[in-house]
């Protein structure tokens, strides 16, 4: 029996206590004069019972899982011969791994006798630990259940307690996202600080050259390492700008068509279709960009005498723009629909045509919401990786020409971290600095977008 099995059995048992609690409540109700004499509905008593029995047991199980291995391995290590204990930490870890392998798969050739002995000891300790755990869980469960059973009365305020428990559950779920964000920020932040110890912040922010190859040996040829992030951000900006030039007009007009002109039948057919675009994996967009759009642009450019590189910012930007269209159209559609019909009626009542109404009344009224949507789309474009990896190229050119190959921040992060990396070279660490910058930029954009959207919401409530 391992932890997952214990967990399943426990979950099933706890689920049973729900029915037990409800049964108890019904009995209590019968004794005191019907269901109405109960403080709460019987299901709340069931949930209360399950909650009381479940939470301590799960906490115990979680703690056990956390500390079980640590304590056992400590105990084993102490019993090892003095010679082993004096080895460096990583070698001791290796020996412990061998012991644990022996315990699981039986002794192999070359295993020292002390290892076999330790393996047997390890095995028995693990078994003991598990039995103890099961015993602890069972007794904890029984004690709590009996106490709750005994204390439960018709006056128990089961509903408010369950509601309180539910509130905590919601709070925990909400904080998962926050803690994760904080974790990401800190991990990126610490690595970035290490990076900035070897490369000055000003060089990173204002340097015009990006070539992260560092010489590993002093006599190695190639790359002294230049970490100016400007070309990367310029590339990101260029591609995002192209994407927005495509996505904003197309998305906005699609939204206007859907919300103002389309008949309900058309709308209900077109809107989901448009949203299918959002469901296409970006990697698929990526090879569409690299294999279809980029060669097409190169050939078309060739026909009219332009030299277009086969990986161009234009191809990546175009496809990214198409990818973002449903984002813009869906958000804009929502805010356009939120514009009260009375405003439209007011304009129609004055003899405005449909397009005058839309241009002069509906869009201005929806503008803050639309801007919010567009800003969210921009942060999406800036963070987009797969399309640019496949279609935009790797050369860090500082150029405003969309027909040339450029690279973006996200592409560089990918190339820096793919493959075997040394985590103490500035080359690898620069990925974290780039990530931090990118994160900051999109965070600010999202924040601004939220502010704008919030301001808009207050207008009609």
């Amino acid at each position: 029996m391992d932890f997952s099995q214990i967990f399943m059995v426990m979950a099933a048992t706890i689920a049973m206590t729900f029915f037990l609690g409800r049964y108890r409540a019904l009995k209590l109700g019968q004794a005191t004069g019907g269901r109405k004499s109960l403080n709460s509905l019987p299901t709340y008593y069931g949930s209360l019972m399950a909650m009381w029995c479940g939470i301590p047991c799960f906490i115990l199980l979680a703690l056990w899982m956390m500390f079980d291995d640590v304590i056992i391995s400590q105990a084993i290590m102490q019993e090892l011969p003095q010679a082993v204990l004096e080895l460096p930490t990583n070698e001791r870890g290796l020996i412990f791994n061998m012991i644990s392998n022996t315990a699981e798969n039986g002794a192999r050739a070359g295993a020292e006798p002390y290892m076999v002995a330790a393996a047997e000891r390890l095995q028995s300790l693990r078994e003991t630990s598990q039995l103890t755990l099961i015993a602890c869980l069972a007794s904890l469960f029984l004690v709590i259940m009996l106490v709750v059973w005994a204390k439960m009365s018709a006056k128990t305020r089961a509903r408010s307690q369950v509601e309180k428990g539910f509130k905590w559950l919601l709070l925990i779920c909400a904080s998962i996202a926050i803690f994760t964000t904080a974790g990401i920020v800190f991990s990126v932040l610490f690595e970035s600080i290490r990076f900035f110890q070897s490369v000055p912040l000003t060089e990173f922010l204002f340097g015009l050259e990006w070539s992260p190859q560092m010489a590993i040996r002093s006599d190695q040829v190639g790359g002294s390492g230049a970490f100016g992030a400007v070309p990367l951000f310029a590339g990101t900006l260029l591609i995002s700008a192209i994407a927005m030039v495509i996505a904003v007009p197309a998305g906005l007009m699609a939204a206007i068509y859907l919300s103002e002109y389309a008949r309900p039948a058309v709308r209900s057919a077109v809107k989901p279709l448009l949203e299918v675009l959002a469901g296409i994996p970006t990697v698929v967009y990526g090879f569409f960009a690299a294999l279809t759009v980029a060669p097409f642009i190169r050939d078309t450019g060739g026909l009219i005498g332009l030299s277009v590189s086969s990986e161009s910012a234009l191809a990546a930007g175009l496809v990214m723009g198409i990818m973002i269209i449903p984002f813009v159209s869906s958000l804009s559609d929502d805010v356009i629909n939120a514009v009260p019909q009375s405003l439209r009626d007011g304009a129609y009542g004055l003899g405005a045509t449909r397009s005058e109404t839309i241009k002069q009344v509906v869009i201005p009224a929806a503008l803050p919401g639309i801007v919010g949507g567009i800003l969210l789309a921009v942060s999406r474009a800036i963070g987009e990786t797969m399309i640019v990896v496949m279609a935009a190229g790797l050369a860090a050119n500082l150029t405003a020409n969309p027909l040339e190959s450029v690279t973006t921040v996200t592409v560089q992060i990918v190339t820096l971290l793919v493959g075997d990396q040394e985590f103490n070279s500035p080359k690898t660490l620069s990925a974290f600095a780039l990530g931090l910058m990118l994160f900051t930029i999109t965070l600010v954009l999202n924040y601004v977008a939220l502010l704008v959207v919030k301001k808009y919401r207050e207008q009609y409530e």
Partner: protein
Amino acid sequence: MQVVNTPIQENEKLNAKSDKVAREKPKTDPINGSHANVGETVGKPFAKHPKMTMRNVDVFYGDKQAIYDVSLDIGKHEVVAMIGPSGCGKSTFLRCLNRMNDTIDICKVKGEIKLEELDVYHPKQDVVPLRARVGMVFQKPNPFPKSIYDNVAYGPRIHGLFERKTDLDEIVENSLRRASLWEEVKDRLHSPGTGLSGGQQQRLCIARTIAVSPEVILMDEPCSALDPIATAKIEELIAELSKKFTIAIVTHSMQQAARVSHRTAYFHMGKLVEVNDTKRVFTNPQHKLTEAYITGRFG
């Protein structure tokens, strides 16, 4: 209100005949009554100098009929109030007069609606010039999210009613004055119209409507979202406006109908039950249903 006595007296003769139409008592309880016991319109639905004439108007929402065979005139410079219980079709009927129902796909209108010689529902009739002649004020004040000035200037701008900026300034000032809002807003013409109080917003919407110089103004419960003081102001305004405009007003408040209108039309379940001089409708209704409604027995 004295100004408009003349058309009413003239209407008297025209409608004398329909006054005499014999009425049968409704056979069933009026609250649950069917259309069958409504019968022909009583009173005097016609005017001698009609601004708008409606003849045998039927309105359908999909398969459901909302208005049954309504014939009514609105005389020049007359204020006609339309009253009736919720869902009786008075707003629907009002919105036919400048084709605001066009925005509802399933709405179909049959019969004849004329603005003087103009056939409102002629297939080739463009709604834009029509709505410039027949303006509308809505239930809830709905100023555009623009400045006070731009709200009023909106209509003149889309219809190209001015040549110089000073002309527009003049139109805006005159309209605001006529809506008796000028004194309150003249110092903040460029602040947002949504920042005004409810009553001011509604007067702004009236100013916006009259800035286009319409001939007819339709008002769909213009005071239902306002407090009594703002309501009183709007009612005063209606009396003032009727000197220059023809007004059709839908209202839930019978007192309001009695105060502002020359004639009152009572609608019941999509039918026009009774039209008569307002005083007469409220003091001596001829139809059982009208009587039941104005005495507060249902509705």
